[in-house]
C-alpha cells in the first residue's frame, strides 16, 4: 500500500480484514504534527480565548505562520496545528501552474487529517457516469459508514447525502446561525423547491454518540485545531488500529517514486525522506493510494512514455452572506466549525448534474482572518467584523466537473527537484461550463437572499481550491484491457497484472457532492478486487 489517507486506510483495512492472510506493508510519507498536539487545551473556544495567555501559540502559530497576508488561496482554512498536512509538499511534490492550485498532503492520514467530514453518497446516475458500479458501491458505502460513523438527518437533502445508508447517527445540534437559516428554509420550503433547490443537514463523519474509544461530539468549537475525543473521523485512527495487527506493517518517511513490474512481483522504489537515501521494497501486489496527483506522478515515472494526463476538479467559490437578524448577536453561545447545512441545486430532480453548497457559520477561525478582507482601515474593520461575524454565513459552492476546456498534467524533468521532475498543470473550463457556473452561482445567491441571507462578497480562490480531485487515470472498460494510463474496472492498472490504484484516479466524472465518502467506498472495491485476483 502507498498512502495512509482516507483511501489508503480503507483499502488497507479491507485487505487486512478480508481474510486470506494478506500481509500488508504501508509505505507513507507520514508527516505528523509534533509541535501542537501537546499544547492544545482541553477547554472550549470561548473559555480558551478568555483564559489562556498562551493561545497565540496555536491560533497564530509558534512562528506566527498562521497569520495570513496576501491573496486567499487553497487551504486558507488550515490553522497552525493542521499545517503539517502540507509540510514538505512544495519540495517533494513540486507542481508548477498558473491556472491550477491544488492542495496535496504528505501527512499521516493525508488530507483526511484535516478534512471537513462532509459525506455524500452519489446517485446511481452519478456512479455510472464516474465509471463506478452502483450496486457494489452501495454495499461499500455502508461498510465505510459503519466503520467511520456518520451522523445526519432523513430530511429534504437526504437523497443527496445519506441516501440509502443505514445506522446513521442523529445530527449535531445546530448553532444559532444555522438554526436561523434552517428555520427560514422550512418557512419558504415550497418556493425554494420550485427554484430547484433542496436544503438539509450536512451528513458528517462525526459521532454524536460514543462508539468504542471514540467519544461523542463535545461542542468545543475547536474543530479546526484538534481531534480531542476522536468524535471526528480521521484516517490515521484506522491506520493506528491496523498497526496493532501482526500482519500489518507501517513505514513512514518514505516517498514512493515509481515501481517496476516483474513476472511474479513488483519492486517499489522510493526515497527515505529523513535520510535522503534511495529505498526499495518488493511486494506481490501494489495498491497505490497517494491521492490522484500522487498516483499520476508514480505511474508516469514507471513507464518510458510520459503522456499528458487528464484531471477532474470541482470548480469552487464561496459567497459570504449576512443574515441581518443576527447582526451583533452575542458570540458566546454554542458554535460549530463544521458545515451544518447543505444546499443542493438539482433543477431537473434527476439527482445528476447537481451543484452543492456547504454552509458554515464563522467564529473559531478568528476575526483577524476576515478583517483583512475588508477594504477599510483595520481599526474600523475589526469592530464592524465583530458585529457582522455572528450574522456571517459562508456558502461554499461546488460544481460538478466533466471533461472539457483545457486541462492536463505533464511530468517534466527538473534537476532541482529530489525526484528530478516537476508536475506541470493546466486547467480551464470551456466557455459553456463557465457560463453555466455563473448562472448557477446567481441562482444560489438568489435563493440565499430569499432565505434572508444577503451576499456581501464572492471569493474565487482559483481552480484546485475545492480540494476534490479525480480522473487522472480514467476507468476504461474497453475489451482490449491494456489502454495505457487507464484503470480497469476494479482499479487494476491497464496492462499490469499486479498494480492497483485505490484513490480517485479512475473516476471519469466528478459530482459536486463531497467526494471522499465515494473515494473510500471505491478504495474498498479496489482492495476487494486485489484480494480476488490474488
Amino acid at each position, binding site marked *: 500500500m502507498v498512502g495512509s489517507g482516507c483511501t489508503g486506510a480503507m483499502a488497507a483495512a479491507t485487505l487486512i480484514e478480508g481474510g486470506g492472510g494478506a500481509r500488508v506493508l504501508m509505505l507513507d510519507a507520514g508527516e505528523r504534527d509534533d509541535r501542537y498536539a501537546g499544547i492544545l487545551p482541553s477547554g472550549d473556544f470561548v473559555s480558551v480565548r478568555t483564559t489562556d495567555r498562551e493561545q497565540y501559540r496555536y491560533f497564530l502559530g509558534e512562528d506566527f505562520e498562521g497569520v495570513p*497576508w496576501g491573496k486567499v488561496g487553497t487551504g486558507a482554512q488550515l490553522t497552525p496545528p493542521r499545517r503539517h498536512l502540507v509540510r514538505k509538499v512544495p519540495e517533494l511534490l513540486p507542481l508548477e501552474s498558473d491556472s491550477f492550485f491544488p492542495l496535496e498532503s504528505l501527512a499521516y492520514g493525508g488530507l483526511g487529517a484535516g478534512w471537513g467530514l462532509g459525506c455524500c453518497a452519489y446517485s446511481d446516475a452519478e456512479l455510472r457516469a464516474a465509471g463506478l458500479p452502483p450496486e457494489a458501491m452501495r454495499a461499500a458505502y455502508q461498510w465505510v459508514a459503519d466503520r467511520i460513523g456518520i451522523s445526519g438527518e432523513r430530511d429534504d437533502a437526504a437523497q443527496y447525502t445519506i441516501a440509502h445508508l443505514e445506522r446513521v447517527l442523529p445530527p449535531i445540534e445546530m448553532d444559532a446561525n444555522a438554526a436561523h437559516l434552517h428555520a427560514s428554509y422550512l418557512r419558504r420550503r415550497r418556493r425554494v423547491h420550485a427554484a430547484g433547490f433542496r436544503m438539509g443537514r450536512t451528513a458528517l463523519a462525526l459521532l454524536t454518540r460514543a462508539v468504542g474509544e471514540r467519544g461523542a461530539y463535545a461542542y468545543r468549537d475547536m474543530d479546526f485545531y484538534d481531534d480531542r475525543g476522536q468524535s471526528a473521523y480521521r484516517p490515521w485512527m484506522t491506520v493506528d488500529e491496523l498497526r496493532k495487527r501482526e500482519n500489518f506493517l507501517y513505514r513512514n518517511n518514505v516517498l514512493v517514486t515509481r515501481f517496476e513490474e516483474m513476472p511474479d512481483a513488483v519492486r517499489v522504489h522510493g526515497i527515505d525522506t529523513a535520510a535522503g537515501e534511495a529505498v526499495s521494497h518488493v511486494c506481490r501486489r501494489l495498491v497505490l493510494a497517494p491521492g490522484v496527483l500522487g498516483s499520476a506522478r508514480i505511474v508516469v515515472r514507471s513507464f518510458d512514455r510520459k503522456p499528458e494526463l487528464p484531471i477532474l476538479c470541482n470548480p469552487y467559490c464561496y459567497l459570504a452572506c449576512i443574515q441581518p437578524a443576527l447582526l451583533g448577536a452575542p*458570540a458566546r453561545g454554542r458554535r460549530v466549525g463544521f458545515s451544518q447545512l447543505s444546499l443542493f441545486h438539482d433543477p431537473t430532480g434527476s439527482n445528476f448534474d447537481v451543484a452543492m453548497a456547504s454552509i458554515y457559520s464563522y467564529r473559531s477561525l478568528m476575526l*483577524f482572518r476576515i478583517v483583512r478582507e475588508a477594504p*477599510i*482601515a*483595520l481599526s474600523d474593520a475589526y*469592530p*464592524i467584523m465583530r458585529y457582522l461575524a455572528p450574522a456571517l454565513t459562508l456558502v461554499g459552492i461546488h460544481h460538478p466537473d466533466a471533461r472539457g476546456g483545457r486541462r492536463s498534467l505533464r511530468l517534466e524533468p527538473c534537476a532541482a527537484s529530489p525526484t528530478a521532475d516537476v508536475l506541470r498543470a493546466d486547467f480551464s473550463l470551456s466557455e459553456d461550463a463557465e457560463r453555466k457556473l455563473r448562472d448557477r452561482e446567481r441562482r444560489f445567491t438568489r435563493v440565499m437572499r430569499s432565505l434572508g441571507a444577503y451576499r456581501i462578497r464572492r471569493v474565487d480562490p482559483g481552480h484546485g481550491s475545492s480540494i476534490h480531485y479525480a480522473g487522472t487515470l480514467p476507468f476504461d472498460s474497453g475489451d482490449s484491457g491494456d489502454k495505457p494510463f487507464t484503470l480497469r474496472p476494479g482499479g487494476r492498472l491497464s496492462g499490469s497484472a499486479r498494480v492497483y490504484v485505490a484513490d480517485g484516479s479512475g473516476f471519469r466524472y466528478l459530482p459536486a457532492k463531497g467526494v471522499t465518502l465515494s473515494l473510500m467506498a471505491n478504495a474498498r472495491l479496489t482492495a476487494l478486487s486485489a484480494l480476488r485476483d490474488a
Partner: protein
Amino acid sequence: MAPDSATTDLEQGVAFGRYLLGEPPSQDALRLFARAAATLPPLDQREARLVAFLLQNRWAIGPVDAALALMRPASPVRGRIFLMLAVLECLPEYVPRFLPATRSPFEHVRMAGHALRALGRALLGMVVLTIASRA
C-alpha cells in the same frame, strides 16, 4: 537582529497598538508583536520610509491604513498593522473587543459611525499617502 530594527519593531508595536486600541497596548502585546515582526522579511525602502513617516506622524496611521486598504491592500506596512491586530486578538485582556458579549440597541448606530469614519479616513488617507510617498 540589528538593535535599531528591534527598536523600530517595538516603536511600531506601540504606535500600531495604540492606533488599534485607542490606548497603549500591554507589555505582553508588545513582546509578542516584536517576536512576530522578527519573522517578517525586512521592508523595502519605500515601505520603510512610510513606516518612519507614520511613527513621526501617528495621527496619520488611520488615514494611511484606510488608503492602503483601497490602493495597496497587500502593502507590508498594512501587513504589520494587521499582525498587531492578530496579536491583540489572542490576548485574554482584549478578548471582549473581539467577541461581543451583549447586544445593545446602540450597536447599529456605533457601526454606522465606524463606517462613516472609515470613509472619511480613506479620503484623507489618499491625500496623506500621496504626500508621504513623495516626501
